[in-house]
């Protein structure tokens, strides 16, 4: 085992001599990127899993859009289960002149059955576990609600017809929506106050919950007992169901961010390969010497492998440490939309770090270094012996296999691996082709101006292969940053500009039929405009051609989703402009005959039904049956309320229904909304601009997180550049020595170097801008159907960023080689 000690000493000495710097830097960047994402998602997952048992605030929850039978509660109590009830609905809360949409949670004594509420006595006060629930006439408000209304504890808020006193700040409840932005901040009230609000009426958007907790066996027994008796609109959710959904969501986010950091890993691996190649070339003589001094082949290989194992250990340790630090950045960005405190990370990402380091080392460094082991000792006497050759098939084969294995570990899906591999190869080919064209195009400028230019451009052309690698490495990372930083904003802005200036910006729901006329008059008086309105009927599809839906096979998963929830139906006579009939016939404006249905064509495909089929909907406990007589395509971005399912007029007017309405209210008149809410309690107003700005914020945060991950890619690009420079260092030293000797001033040579790297960086910038423009245009045109105009900022930004980063890093890294005294360099030869 004497090779162990020798390997340790060699490793220490190589580190000290800087022989491993680039190699180590490359792997550390890769491990940092991977583990930063790993630690972050691990913390989020940890938080979610810790809450999976309390995420329901109970062991079992029965949920419906309609009132639930109290019989279930009686039965549960009979089995010795704990019970509680909640009612959730959105409504507008008023405080003085301020109004805001709030998510009301009305809870009964006993809530929550699992987990606990955390409350504080002032807006930013210290939280503590709550005892009990809000008393009658009291409300506990989430910080966001108090912020929007400019209130603190002690203030009064009006919900419908009642005024409540805010007695606590509600910091946390176990069954809050986690991981997503709640469009409306919450207000928790006592269930017994709800009738007094006067806002919950038949047909209102309300979710009724009955909660149960107790011994596992009793819960199971209860579940078995009531399941067969559930109405179609009643759904049971247990702990396992909740956990599964959370896991799936985290899994997706984790895989996406990890794949993003994989781009960094690939670039870092390329840099590692370059650094390993140089290390190998430099160590041919040393290996020959060791063999002359009596080292066997086995010994040399054992030392190499041990040294690489030490490299893995060190880079994994360093990278994991840095990754742990870097995940704070992600956690900071995500803090708002994760919405709760993250627990410390587990040790699991450490394994990912080791795996990443090991993959890169084994795939990209090991082949080069092992080939050195075969150097014949005779090289000590015959320097001209060719270095051992490593076949391209081996080099690329091993590298691809290693990366492929890593991707497979991450995505755990061979098909996805194939798609990713195809995508990466296609992207690399296109980018390389483009990079090659750019590098080639420089030839014509060579004679343009002076020796420094000629020298700089000649260097790029001569190291064609490496130049292309650098342009591609930088170009790709810059491209992603441009896409997320510039193009995303352009697309959002373009979309916002397509909205007509007086498109409806206020949407109202839960309008009782008897309120409609008054509401219309209200807007006529206040803003001189009558709102557009449509009836809204809530119903659940329960049967197709007489077959209950549970025995009916839908065409695909989207169709299945439709079955799981209450659908919004409406009725109308005239076909809206934004709709077009593609099959069957529309009933016509004055139709008053038997009930008919018109479906969105896509929904019909998803469900697997067509014109002539009969559907049954359960509306407020009653079944209605009607034939599908037409299919429509819908322009969803028309900013008019649109419906998947439309009923024929006449008979449908007798079904339980509310109205929704939309109207444009100028920004300076929004204060009328507080009057509206007071005058029409129960009507819920949605301010489109508020919602849009929240959506925008979520997109900003999400893309910031992805950008953060891609900063590491840029860093990996720098390492690729440094590795490439290191590969050509000896050559550069020798050349500048010759140029010095021939009388070139040091400044001239440095100018040449600066020109070389500024040009390389500009090429990367061009590649990035071209890529971002094409992708942006493609996304805008095909995915969002928008006329996309390239931001004036995109090209200058790409060029300047590329030229500056590559120019500065490249020139700095090369300066030392250029500045060495020619005598020393020439003597070394």
């Amino acid at each position, binding site marked *: 085992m*004497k090779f162990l*000690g*020798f390997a340790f*000493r060699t490793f220490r*000495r*190589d580190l*000290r*001599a800087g*022989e491993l710097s680039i190699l180590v830097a490359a792997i550390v960047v890769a491990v940092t990127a991977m583990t930063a994402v790993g630690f972050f998602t691990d913390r989020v997952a940890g938080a979610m899993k810790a809450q999976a048992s309390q995420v329901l605030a109970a062991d079992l929850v029965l949920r419906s859009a309609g009132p639930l039978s109290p019989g279930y509660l009686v039965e549960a109590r009979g089995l010795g289960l704990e019970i509680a009830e909640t009612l959730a609905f959105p409504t507008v809360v008023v405080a003085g002149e301020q109004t805001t949409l709030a998510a009301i949670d009305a809870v009964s004594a006993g809530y929550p059955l699992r987990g606990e509420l955390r409350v504080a006595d002032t807006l930013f006060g210290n939280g503590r576990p709550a005892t009990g629930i809000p008393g009658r006439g009291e409300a506990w408000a989430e910080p966001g609600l108090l912020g929007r209304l400019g209130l603190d504890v002690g203030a009064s808020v009006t919900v419908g017809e009642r005024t409540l006193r805010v007695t606590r700040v509600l910091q946390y409840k176990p069954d809050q929506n986690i991981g997503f932005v709640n469009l409306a901040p919450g207000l928790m009230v006592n269930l017994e106050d709800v009738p007094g609000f006067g806002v919950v009426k038949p047909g209102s958007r309300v979710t009724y919950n009955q909660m149960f907790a107790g011994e596992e066996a009793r819960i199971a027994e209860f579940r078995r007992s009531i399941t067969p008796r559930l109405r179609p609109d009643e759904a049971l959710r247990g702990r396992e169901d909740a956990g599964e959904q959370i896991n799936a969501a985290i899994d997706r986010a984790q895989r996406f961010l990890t794949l993003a950091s994989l781009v960094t890993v690939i670039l870092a691996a390329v840099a590692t390969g370059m650094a390993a190649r140089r290390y190998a070339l430099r160590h041919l*003589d*040393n290996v020959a*010497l*060791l*063999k*002359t*001094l*009596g*080292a*066997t*082949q*086995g*010994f040399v290989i054992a030392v190499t492998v041990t040294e690489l194992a030490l490299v893995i250990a060190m880079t994994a340790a360093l990278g994991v440490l840095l990754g742990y630090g870097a995940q704070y950045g992600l956690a900071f960005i995500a803090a708002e939309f994760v919405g709760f405190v993250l627990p410390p990370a587990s040790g699991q990402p450490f394994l990912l770090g080791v795996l990443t380091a090991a993959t890169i080392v084994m795939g990209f460094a090991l082949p080069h270094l092992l080939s050195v082991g075969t150097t*014949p*000792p*005779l090289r*000590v*006497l*015959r*320097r001209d012996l060719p270095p051992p050759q490593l076949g391209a098939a081996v080099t690329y084969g091993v590298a691809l296999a290693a990366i492929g294995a890593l991707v497979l570990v991450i995505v755990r899906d061979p098909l996805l691996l194939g798609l990713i591999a195809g995508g990466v190869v296609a992207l690399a080919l296109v980018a390389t082709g483009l990079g090659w064209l750019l590098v080639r195009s420089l030839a014509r400028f060579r004679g343009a101006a002076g020796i420094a230019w000629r020298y700089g451009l000649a260097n790029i052309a001569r190291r064609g292969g490496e130049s292309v690698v650098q342009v591609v490495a930088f170009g790709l990372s810059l491209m992603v940053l441009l896409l997320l930083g510039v193009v995303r904003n352009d697309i959002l802005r373009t979309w916002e500009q397509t909205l007509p200036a007086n498109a409806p910006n206020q949407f109202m729901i839960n309008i009782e039929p008897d309120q409609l006329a008054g509401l219309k008059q209200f807007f006529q008086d206040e803003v001189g405009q009558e709102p557009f309105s449509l009836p809204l009927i809530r119903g659940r599809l329960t049967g197709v051609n007489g077959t209950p839906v549970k025995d009916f096979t839908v065409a695909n998963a989207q169709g299945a989703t439709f079955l799981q929830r209450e659908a919004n139906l409406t009725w109308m006579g005239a076909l809206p402009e934004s709709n077009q009939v593609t099959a069957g016939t529309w009933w016509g404006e004055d139709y008053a005959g038997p009930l008919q249905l018109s479906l969105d064509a896509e929904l019909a495909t998803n469900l697997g039904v067509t014109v002539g089929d009969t559907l049954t909907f359960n509306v407020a406990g009653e079944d209605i049956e009607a034939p599908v007589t037409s299919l429509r395509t819908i322009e969803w971005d028309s900013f008019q309320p649109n419906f998947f399912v439309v009923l024929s007029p006449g008979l449908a007017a007798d079904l339980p229904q509310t109205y929704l309405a939309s109207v444009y209210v100028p920004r300076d008149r929004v204060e009328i909304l507080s009057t509206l809410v007071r005058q029409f309690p129960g009507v819920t107003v949605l301010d489109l601009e508020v919602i849009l700005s929240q959506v925008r914020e979520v997109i900003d945060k999400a893309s910031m997180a992805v950008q953060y991950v891609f900063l590491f890619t840029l860093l990996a690009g720098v390492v690729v550049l440094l590795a490439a420079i290191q590969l050509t260092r000896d050559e550069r030293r020798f050349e500048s020595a010759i140029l010095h000797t021939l009388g070139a001033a040091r400044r001239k040579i440095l100018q040449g170097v600066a020109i070389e790297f500024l040009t390389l960086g500009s090429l990367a910038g061009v590649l990035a801008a071209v890529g971002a423009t094409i992708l942006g245009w493609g996304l805008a045109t095909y995915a969002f159907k928008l006329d996309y105009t390239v931001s004036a900022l995109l090209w200058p930004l790409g060029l300047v960023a590329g030229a500056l980063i590559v120019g500065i890093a490249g020139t700095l890294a090369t300066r030392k080689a250029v500045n060495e005294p020619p005598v020393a360099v020439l003597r070394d030869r």
Partner: protein
Amino acid sequence: MLRATGLSKQVSSPEGTLTILDDVSLEIARGESVALVGPSGAGKTTLLAILAGLDQPTRGRVWLCGEELTGLDEDGRALLRARRVGFVFQSFHLVQSLTALENVMLPLELAGEPRAAALARETLANVGLGSRTGHYPKQLSGGEQQRVAIARAFVLRPEVLFADEPTGNLDSATGERIGRLLFDLNAEARTTLVLVTHERSLAARCDRTIRIEAGRVATGEPAAAVAG
């Protein structure tokens, strides 16, 4: 100590098969110092490489320290070299990333010697570099670098020392000093020395000179005769 019989070395080249050594036989006794001399391209270095087990002959056999080198594989030859053979090269072959001390420690570490640092320091002092142990090759002059290489060659007290143009890269005054050092250490350790050189004065210090011409042994005579 060292015996070779019927050594031939042929290599294929674009011009056909090239004979570098042609039926060379020789015997060198323990403690003897022998200079291999001859014009450039005569095959001296190839002969040295084969005698040291760095290269294999096309035909013929070599015995080193009583073991048949030509019967061993590359690892076997390496193990034989490990304890018994030292080398000094024209271009020094110091590891650039190691200090003078670490370069000298290298063969000791390979042999698993626990007192590597102390022994190396002592040997460096013997060659007059006791105060420069922490210097890197780049920071040493050519003569100093060769002295480090000599210290490295002698530190394990090898039975045979092979030197390939040890003064070839040095000016004549430094070369002279290095030559003296080499022979002083050799005399002290009673090492068998096989030396390839163009330097007449260096060859003259050897007990015997073997002249190689066109791959064959031209003469084998006491060095004094050549020098005289």
